[in-house]
């Protein structure tokens, strides 16, 4: 009895959409056109083209642009690892810090010096990757709805990363550190937070003491620890987090940075002397760009800029954005408490609780605030099999805008319509390549919220219902709007993940394609490949026995 779904399903009654039964055509209600939306769309188009261009040499799984968060985390571990070694050799003291780090670069250039360079270049890489990650998420509109938490927890990390980076430059206490420390203090003094100007700490060579460096080391270790804590919070509400990029990406990145460290080792400038302003210095523009910016403008303008950008980032979710997707609904009568939706949900929107009606059983519960409305849970539900006898197919967890029952009905209608020697069903992600152009008398196109919502049994159902072949189109690897849809689909169809496609289904009759929006020619080529294969007479013998639900002996 699924009538009480809203009460059982989620406390967020306002987020339930069980009255809206809309089969998606792939587009959601868009926000009103504004300067921001035009800017974002333009930027996302550029970003996407670059990303897809890099798919060529890298492939989706190894494309660094598709895994910026994981790459950033990897760079952070390089920073932490190399930093731990640097900490062991660092002597805190005005002269000692400069001497100990300088000695490391000179006398142990092959190890300590390389680690020091790695520490610096990985930090620069981290700032670069973090900025790109921020831009990418903004471009793709990933800052509202179920992504709000990750966005809001990500913004303060920018400050923590920057403070960590800038503090690292001070520890060496060379001329660059002097410039940075003095300029930062002068910038901070513009804010009414100190009773005495903090820049007075850097007036003369006598102004600072060994204590300063002890404090600095604590800050340079403490702030990154806060950053790591913040990163944990940042990814806390998503599941199957990519903590690290692929092994190839890690190895190649490390090699690139190692090579850079050997070719251009990071060395200290002459020691700091507060009685003199240093001349021209090698300058790290990734981290220290704020000082020239302040010199060029004014502390007031820089603070205004920094605070305005931060406020804007926090306020982005308030700007008009597409309406949220309807969230998944659980049917307690059909939920077996198997945990598969819990395991597959990319956003940890599902929790299991004791079943209110069946003692000893569990029931999936959807958090409407976290649900992306992708339907991956419906695809993972064992109750979503179309082979079930009942006329009204009610599954354990379903999408109101494209229920499994409606999907089966639509498939049956399409199968009945198809004619010709090679009847093909195309299951296509509505966010991937536009498959509507493939529809023909012998080709049925079934758009899906995400291919992750396709229960693999639908492939067998289509083949036993009259189709000669099935084409499943996902987004490009790593390009799924819902993170894991393409991956789960591949693994389920390959029999590596539950629910799996039965081995009795002939592999030759199934074609898996990964064509993103704009890749329509690739999708068309994949269909042609499948048709060519189906034309092979050897396939004639592997046809599955037909299954017509309405006349089967189970019905």
């Amino acid at each position: 009895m699924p009538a009480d779904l809203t009460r059982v399903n989620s406390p967020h009654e306002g987020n339930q959409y069980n009255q809206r039964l809309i089969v998606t055509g792939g587009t959601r209600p868009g926000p009103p056109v504004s300067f921001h939306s035009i800017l974002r769309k333009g930027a996302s188009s550029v970003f996407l083209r670059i990303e897809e261009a890099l798919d060529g040499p890298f492939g989706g799984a190894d494309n660094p642009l598709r895994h910026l968060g994981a790459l950033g985390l990897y760079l952070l571990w390089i920073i932490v690892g190399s930093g731990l070694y640097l900490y062991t050799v660092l002597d805190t003291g005005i002269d000692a810090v400069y001497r100990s780090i300088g000695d490391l670069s000179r006398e142990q250039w092959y190890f300590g010096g390389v680690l020091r360079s790695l520490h610096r270049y990985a930090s620069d890489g981290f700032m670069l990757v973090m900025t790109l990650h921020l831009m990418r998420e903004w471009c793709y509109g990933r800052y509202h709805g179920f992504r709000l938490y990750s966005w809001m927890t990500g913004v303060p990390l920018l400050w923590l990363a920057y403070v960590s980076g800038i503090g690292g430059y001070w520890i060496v206490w060379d001329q660059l550190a002097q410039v940075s420390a003095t300029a930062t203090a002068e910038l901070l003094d513009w804010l009414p937070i100190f009773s005495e100007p903090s820049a007075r700490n850097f007036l003369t060579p006598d102004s600072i003491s060994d204590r300063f460096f002890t404090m600095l080391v604590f800050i340079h270790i403490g702030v990154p620890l806060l950053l790591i804590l913040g990163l944990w919070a940042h990814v806390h509400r998503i599941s199957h987090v990519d903590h690290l990029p692929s092994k190839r990406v890690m190895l190649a990145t490390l090699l690139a940075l190692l090579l850079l460290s050997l070719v251009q080792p990071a060395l200290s400038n002459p020691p700091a002397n507060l009685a003199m302003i240093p001349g021209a210095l090698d300058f790290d523009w990734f981290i220290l760009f704020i000082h020239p910016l302040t010199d060029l403008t004014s502390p007031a303008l820089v603070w205004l800029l920094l605070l305005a950008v931060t406020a804007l980032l926090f306020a982005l979710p308030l700007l008009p954005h597409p309406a949220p997707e309807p969230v998944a609904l659980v049917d307690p009568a059909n939920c077996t408490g198997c945990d598969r939706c819990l395991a597959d949900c990319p956003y940890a929107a599902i929790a299991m609780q004791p079943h209110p009606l069946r003692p000893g059983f569990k029931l999936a519960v959807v958090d409407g605030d976290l649900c992306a409305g992708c339907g991956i849970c419906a695809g993972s539900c064992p109750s979503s099999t179309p082979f079930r006898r009942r006329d009204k197919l009610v599954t354990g967890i379903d999408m109101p805008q494209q229920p499994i029952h409606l999907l089966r009905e639509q498939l049956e209608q399409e199968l009945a319509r198809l004619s010709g020697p090679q009847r093909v069903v195309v299951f296509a992600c509505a966010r991937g390549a536009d498959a509507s152009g493939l529809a023909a008398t012998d080709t049925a196109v079934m758009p899906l919220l995400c291919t992750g919502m396709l229960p693999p049994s639908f492939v067998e159902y289509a083949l036993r219902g009259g189709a000669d072949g099935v084409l499943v189109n996902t987004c490009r690897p790593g390009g799924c709007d819902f993170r894991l849809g393409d991956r789960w689909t591949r693994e389920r169809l390959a029999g590596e993940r539950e629910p799996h496609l039965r081995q009795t289904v002939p592999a030759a009759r199934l074609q898996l394609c990964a064509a993103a929006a704009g890749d329509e020619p690739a999708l068309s080529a994949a269909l042609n490949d499948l048709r060519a294969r189906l034309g092979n007479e050897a396939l004639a013998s592997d046809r599955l026995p037909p299954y017509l639900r309405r006349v089967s002996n189970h019905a």
Partner: protein
Amino acid sequence: MPKPTAIIGQVILYGAFAAFIGYFATSPKYRQIADDVALIKLSISHLGDRECRKRTPEELAKMPPNMRAPMDCPRERSDIRLEMDLDGQPVLRTVMHPTGLYKDGVSTIYRRFEVKAGSHQIAVRMNDNLVKPGFNFVKEGEINLRPGQVMVIDFNPDKGGLFFQ
């Protein structure tokens, strides 16, 4: 296994990544001030004076024994007037206010003056009790600044008031 062309492409792109980081980690060079310029930092942190009154014996007698402070001083500190001339030209005329909700904290200032290296005549005047007219601290002198040199003008009562360093 990636195709050879893909491997070459990856090598080029990772190389570009490393080159981009390597370049902007050190270049272009940055110079905070021009070659022939020196810096004067005027930085003072000083508690303004206040007008205290000596209590009469009668007043002291009326007070509890443990609170018989001979001087009656207000909590608030005076503003501090500060002037600085460089080569005879006024470059600073300001009044520094005491910090704190009750105006009982130090008055502070921190200013940077970029000047051409060479000889300069500097005069600094300060009055830390505006009830009294004029300036009770004055420091004048000719200084010779080398390019890039930082000269500090500070105040320390133990060093005789205003001083150049």
